[in-house]
């Protein structure tokens, strides 16, 4: 995936990478490291984004927020959002809301490790996918110690 991302973005000045807390940051850390090794001439810009305050199910349960750290301007840049699992699309929708409060990116792309394609609840799809899996709606797919784990119901 890092190779694909690197090929698509030869000039790292125009692109920033943002991992979504918490799984997306774990995946993002590795991807950014790999991209940096492919393109040593330019520094990869990498931030972490937390969607806790933007969840649409906030009234059901109050969650403790994670750290948010976007130490660069996203105005007119291509932003590559990175997450571990793409399921209903609600997290990505919230992440887009967060992002737009930081500025107006030229373009937003989505990179996910696992795509559970058949369960989408919003019109959202990924540009870079590690693996697509077929799951039941009640199954849980999680990233545990950098391993993708399927918990079947």
């Amino acid at each position, binding site marked *: 995936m890092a190779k694909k991302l690197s090929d698509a973005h030869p000039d790292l000045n125009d692109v920033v990478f943002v991992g979504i807390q918490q799984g997306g940051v774990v995946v993002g850390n590795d991807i950014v490291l790999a991209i940096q090794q492919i393109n040593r001439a330019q520094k990869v810009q990498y931030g972490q984004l*937390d969607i806790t*305050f*933007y969840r649409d199910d906030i009234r059901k349960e*109050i969650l403790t*927020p994670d750290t948010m*750290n976007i130490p660069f301007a996203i105005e007119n840049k291509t932003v590559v959002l990175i997450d571990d699992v793409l399921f209903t699309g609600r997290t990505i929708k919230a992440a887009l809301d967060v992002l737009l*409060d930081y500025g107006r990116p030229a373009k937003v792309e989505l990179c996910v490790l696992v795509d559970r394609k058949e369960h989408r609840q919003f019109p959202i799809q990924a540009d870079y996918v590690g693996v697509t899996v077929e799951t039941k709606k009640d199954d849980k797919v999680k990233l545990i110690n950098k391993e993708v784990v399927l918990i079947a119901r």
Partner: protein
Amino acid sequence: MQLSTRHLLGIKNLTKEDISLILSTAEQFKEVLQRPVKKVPSLRDVTIVNLFYENSTRTRFSFELAEKRLSADTINFAASSSSASKGETLLDTVNNILSMKVDMVVMRHSASGAPHFLAQHIPAAIINAGDGINEHPTQGLLDAFSIKEKTGTLEGRKVAIIGDIMHSRVAQSNIYLLKKMGAEVTVCGPPTLIPKYISGALGVNVNYNLKETLEWCDVANVLRIQLERQNQVLFSSLREYSLAYGINRNLLDSLHKEIVIMHPGPINRGVEIDSDVADSKQSIILQQVENGVAVRMAVLYLLSGRKD
């Protein structure tokens, strides 16, 4: 993680974990306040009434701003311009407001225990914004947040609280909080303004000597002399108070270290603190005000979800 309580009535009934959770959540909200768009949709559709039976500028603005930054709907109530001046009771006023579907009540009242009374009678979450001479919990939290931000930790930190301890809800909330978080506290002021029971009841040191206290502490929280209580003659004159307990530049320069100066506002310049101290780089008075919004956002956010 959740708070152990559905109201914020005082620091007294919070656990150490509650306090840590509020302070760490406030750090995230402080980040929100640095963004180009300083607003998050967390409390959309939550209605909050700000019920102020006593005058306030800072606290009321700070709560209102915190509510707006969280996208809550707010209504404001000031006792002087309401039916309270026609003799309506507190409970009647609040029940009338609640029947218009309000989720949270932020309340300041001159009677100690007023929010506790209300909490027993109405279903909304209640946040105490200062009750009489009892507590002012969000001030205690924002003071702690500011100390932590400036000096790194609360554990083992030496904090002096100086001035009218007897009538100060700020002092009481600060003491409860700092003791729970492992800080050491010394109160300092004229003997007439320090309750006799305080060192036994709250576990603080008492020192009537200002210079010694300042030499001991890392942080000095200087309280306002409440001019409205001057008819009680607890010290002979403001001038005498200022000479014995006022913080001035010469005094700070005579210390062997640089301490952090705090004040909850409003300042009586030239009484408890001189202008050149209040406006110096040692003072974090305006940072306290800035942090107040983030801390109140954290409290509102953490209390908004519980519907037992």
